[in-house]
């Protein structure tokens, strides 16, 4: 578990520049940072999609990528955080979360999938690679007798 001093140092570095933030989360390999980072206010503000004229882009969210990597090793902790992430129109974040939830317990996955189904129903189309990630969730749900 990182010490309070280590967390403080990390926050100082992260807040100095967006690149630092992305780099920090990309290098994190321990789920022990989830709780202190959540307490510090992370995992609450996914970036919205960006529209520039006819072009739409979906910026990556370092936090959701981190959660997707941690889900296989710390599903309960990831489930707790994912359950509190607000809705977003950012497809990239949806993909990360879909890749994360297939590692969670059936109940957590089903709760996420219920909200996700509502979001999907409002989308004109679902494109690759989100379709692949959602397909894995559907497959997992269909194969689980408790859901």
């Amino acid at each position, binding site marked *: 578990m*990182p010490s309070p001093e*280590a967390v403080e140092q990390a926050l100082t*570095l992260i807040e100095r520049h967006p690149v*630092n933030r992305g780099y*920090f989360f990309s290098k994190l390999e321990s789920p022990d940072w989830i709780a202190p980072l959540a307490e510090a206010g992370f995992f609450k503000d996914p970036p919205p999609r960006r529209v520039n004229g006819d072009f739409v882009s979906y910026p990556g969210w370092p936090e959701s990528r981190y959660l997707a990597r941690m889900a296989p090793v710390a599903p309960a902790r990831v489930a707790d955080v994912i359950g509190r992430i607000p809705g977003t129109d950012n497809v990239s974040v949806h993909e990360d979360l879909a890749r994360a939830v297939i590692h969670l317990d059936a109940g957590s996955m089903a709760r996420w999938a219920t909200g996700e189904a509502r979001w999907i129903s409002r989308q004109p189309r679902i494109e690759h690679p989100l379709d692949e990630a959602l397909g894995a969730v559907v497959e997992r749900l269909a194969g689980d007798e408790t859901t």
Partner: protein
Amino acid sequence: MTPGLTAKVHEVEDVFRDKKARTNCHSESGGWDGTVDSPLRKILNKLEDFLDWFRSLYPRRKDRFRRALSRWEGSDLGLPEPSFEVKWETWSEMNDYFQGVSHHGKPTSTEELRNGIARLETFLARQLLKTSDDLNAIDALLKEPGNA
């Protein structure tokens, strides 16, 4: 306004054809031979000027990369050659991968693409921003016991 490539090539061609007809170093039967004389010297000088001009406007990829690195480093000195070669090799690998996937049908996977993008992001972050000390500090922090 900088003359276009076509105009420049025409300039070289005019000099080449005119001086070739005048030089003693060329004949229809024997081709090119002999000691460099004034007309041939003018051809060679014109050709050298053209190639210098061409390189300045259309540098090779490695030269462009060297210039970009130099600007990013904020110094005209450039990197020591071994360091430059390491960066060039890394950049070339990434370039070959993205060019291959984008334009030449190279097979890839979502995971491989993500890794490629992450590698590129890290490379650019270290080059473009004066945050390399911060990134090193992050590396050091995450290597401490209990933090990894």
